[in-house]
């Protein structure tokens, strides 16, 4: 969708504003919310594997390490099938399914978590995925390194998707920080903060780097959640910010996070 491929233009707009102002770190005096809520990341997929669910407690500050929830009872249900998830003691807060499985499409799945006498439930269907668009790699002329120029269009009228891009150059430069994980989204809605996104970190990597790109198909509800997540995170902090508010979870009992299932496509690229 060419209409929103306007990075050159927007860099000019940013240039204008940077000529006048500046952004810097601040020691913000956060107001205490005392939330103490469960934060659940439950993204199941149609990949045949041990599926993963993460459960942590919310934090007061963004720099805090979240407290892992290690004693919850976690299960998913579909029709008459129940699959339990077991806590991995080597990775606090992470629960893996007892068996490897793939989530079939066209079914409804329920999540049930029991923790300290409270029950947290959610249900979802499976989001369908369309083919992965080609990843665009740019070249840093000064260092001859490469960077990800574009993962996908922000807008598509026909599909909604999440992209997870794992960049690994550990085999080429094992002695430096050598891995990166990027996210991108495609939605069927148009947001000014999505069109004019704030500047983010540019990850440079050498030729020969391995990139594993995964595309997750989204249900309409999960796309709404991720759109809100993008507005609150990667699209926040530009010149056209929107009024902020909490994300709406589909998990009951005031839990945070989201339970969903996605069809996933994967592609591996060796950067030339």
């Amino acid at each position, binding site marked *: 969708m*060419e*209409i929103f*491929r306007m990075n*050159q*233009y927007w860099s000019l*707009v940013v240039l*204008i504003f940077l000529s*006048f*102002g*500046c*952004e*810097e770190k*601040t020691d*913000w005096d*956060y*107001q205490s*919310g*005392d*939330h103490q809520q469960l934060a659940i990341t439950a993204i199941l997929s149609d990949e045949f594997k041990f599926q993963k669910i*993460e459960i*942590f*407690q*919310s*934090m*007061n500050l*963004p720099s805090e390490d*979240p407290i892992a929830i290690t004693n919850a009872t976690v299960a998913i249900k579909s029709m008459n099938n129940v699959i339990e998830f077991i806590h991995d003691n080597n990775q606090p807060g992470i629960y893996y399914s007892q068996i490897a499985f793939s989530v079939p499409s066209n079914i409804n799945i329920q999540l049930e978590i029991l923790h300290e006498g409270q029950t947290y439930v959610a249900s979802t269907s499976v989001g369908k995925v369309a083919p992965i668009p080609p990843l665009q790699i740019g070249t840093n002329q000064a260092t001859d390194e490469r960077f990800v120029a574009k993962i996908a269009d922000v807008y598509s*009228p*026909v599909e909604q998707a999440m992209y997870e891009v794992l960049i690994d150059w550990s085999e080429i430069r094992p002695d430096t*920080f050598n*891995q*990166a*994980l990027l*996210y991108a989204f495609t939605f069927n*809605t*148009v*947001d*000014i903060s999505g*069109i004019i996104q704030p500047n*983010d*970190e540019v*990850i440079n990597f050498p030729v020969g780097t391995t990139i594993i790109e995964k595309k997750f198909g989204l249900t309409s509800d999960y796309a709404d959640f991720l*759109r809100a*997540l993008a507005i609150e*995170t*990667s699209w*926040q*902090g530009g*010149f*056209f*910010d*929107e*009024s*902020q*508010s*909490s*994300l709406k979870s589909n998990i009951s009992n005031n839990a*945070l*996070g*989201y339970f969903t299932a996605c069809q996933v496509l994967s592609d591996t690229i060796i950067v030339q």
Partner: protein
Amino acid sequence: MRSLFLFLFFLLPFLSIQAQQDDYQITIQDRSITLREVLQKITEQTGLDFSFNSDKVNVEEKLKIRIKNASLDETMSVLKNELRIDYSIVENQIILNLQKTSFIDSNPKYYTLSGFLNDQETGESLIGATIELVGTSKGTISNEFGYYAIQLPQGHHQISFSYIGYQNSRNEINLEKDLKLNAQLPTASISLPDVIVGLSSQTKLREKQSSTLKLSPKSLENMPEFAGESGLIKGIQSLPGIKTHSDGSAFFFVRGGEKDQNLIIIDDSPVYNPSHLFGFYSIVVPDFAKSINIYTSDIPTNLGDRLSSIIDIRTKDGNLNRWSFSGALNPLINRFALEIPVVKEKASIFVSTRRSNFDWLFKRNAPNADIGFGDFNFKYNHKINDKNRIYFTLISSSDNFNNQGLRNTQSSGISWGNFGATLRWNHIFSPKLFSNSTFNTGNYVYRLFAPGANRWESSIGSISLKTDFTHFLSPKYKAKFGGEIQTIYINPGTISTPSTRDLFPRIRNNYSRKSLLYYQVEYALSGKTVINAGLRIPSWKSIGPALYGIYDDNYDVVDTVRINSGSYNNYTKIDPRLSIIQQLNTSSNLKLSVGSYHQFLQLISNSTSPFTALEVWLPASPNIAPQQSWQFACNYYKHFPKSNLDFTVEAYYKHSKNIIDYKSHPETLLNPFLEGELRFGTMNAYGLEFMLKKELGKFNGWMSYNFSRAIRTTGTINNGNPYPAFQDRPHDFSILGNYQLSKKITVSGYFTAFTGSAFSSPTGFYEYNNKVIPIFGSKHNDRLPNYRRFDLAFKFRLNKNINARYQHHLNLSFYNLFAHKNIVAVNFNKVEQEDGPPLVKSNFLSEQSIIASQTSLVNWMPSLTYKFKL
């Protein structure tokens, strides 16, 4: 802010007392006293003697007067009203004369005195000039075309014409029939004493009856500039009750209202986006404006369609007597104005143009960029005869931010522009009946375009026909009435693209028709009490073709309604307005007002940005009820003649309903069912505004302080609890001072400070899929840091002879001289960088923690401008 508050309250009484000390303090409190005794007491307390003809002035006449700590002017005005004696002060003597009007019989015949007031040099009509019957409280002010009419009893009268910055003019008339009297006032030379260019207390009180904030383009010129211009928006943002969004923003908030509740009209043409360069500049070219009236309460019934304010800008007609050329040159912006008398004293043209000059600034970093904005304004006025005059005004502004493609074939960028054309016809049916008919058309278009002819576009346009009548019914009654028919067209944002694979939701245009009737009467109950009462009856119809949704309680579309043609929805509202002005004494008055207001157009934007983004307008429709507010205001005004100080305090309370807020993370662009994203609630705003102003003298300026609150309640937002609006800023202080250092150098300083805006800050965080997500508590639980800014400007007159034909001067301004970082946004999603500003985290395997970061704009900005006039 607390210290500021204390400072203000210590300073205000001090200034008030200081002003009174400049004057005499006269106290006479006898219940029964002769005029002789009164005069003796005045002499004792002032040292001034009286001179009068004892055959004509009966000094043994018994009086009942109570005067306490009054100025000489106030005291003499009381006597003037009680005894019908006129007075003048010559050296140290007060000379008393019987007023000529005292000889008229008890049942006199009345005639109408009417005419136009103009600048003697340029022929420009003078708006809001005062016409007074000398020695009485009778008088009126000229309207927006410089026309006045007043009914006076048959006989001899002395008429005074006055206007600030001009020499007063007095004319003796013998009124035996309706009389037309045009007056040309000479501008006051700077070397003349202030008393000549200043206005009397009575005149000041008359001006204050209109309940407007006036901002003269001249005072704008004196304000420190930002990047070459002082600008309208920055000027009005310094007035009490009007709050800026932040640095570099064209948005402003009036008395707690939202940013779309202010209407700017230039010669009756509405302006939907008054900003250039995202808000750093205003589209109103200072050279083009003649008068700027800001209505924040008691808005006349002929104006409306917004809940919070009307900014009524009248442009210059053009010099009727001689050619004139002026301009301003700045490294960032240039502007020129040309005035041509087409037919001397009958017809003239005013042309002004402005163009930004940023290319040199960005050429190195962005060689393919075309960044800039421009304006073109044109006005033609023609006096056809004594009874008819026409005006044609054209305003056009555009912003373009293009980036040319590598092969110079394709470009991407945004552009926006305003266009307005207005034809007005003044017709004087009789000296008592003045009319102005206006035909206006205009639009505002916002485009976002990319290579391949892809384009997102939103627009709003209107065609309007209206007629306003002013009927000077009798000495006590003046009526204004009229009507308007307006058709409004809105494109709420559509995409056009040549590609067949692109599927976008179809966004339909909106068509609406407004018809309006209004009637307002001004009734002078007595010499000291004036009542203004009026009704405004707008009717708003939605016009087909249209498609709108039916929503359930969860705001989900359950059905749609298709309208092929004709009107399908009607809101007819009645807005009563009433004000009572009570003159307390010769230098102060009290005004109470109440009014109802409706607004049928709303700007849909969930953006917190200070800059104009891709906002769209939506009309009132079956799913959007018109916004409505009631405002109650109480205004006290006091003029200190000796020190030439004006003190105003106004308290207000405003209750508004159907005010728009949004559900969490609304979809406001390319959404055919946008109404489902909106939430409607109420707003309660109240406040107390103080202003102390000195218009004349070597040192002049103003100081204002507001205490105000704006609290919203919107359905289930914030769990149904009230929350402060973004613009809720309890304390707001500003002071502007101009001081003439020498005949050639004037220095101006402007300081402002206010409470930071309310916003939502996180009260917790959680991790989801490697991302740190903020958790928000109650809406707008936090505030941005307090705002503070000091601007300084020096104005150097370069021509030696003050009356020289070629006048030129140099303005050197420093915006935010102390480089105070005024925060416009705080973010909670970025990571620190070693060699640059924080950036949004993109590598989610990195262990770098999210930090809080804050953004400030315009930390310091010098500006040098050369201005000339030929």
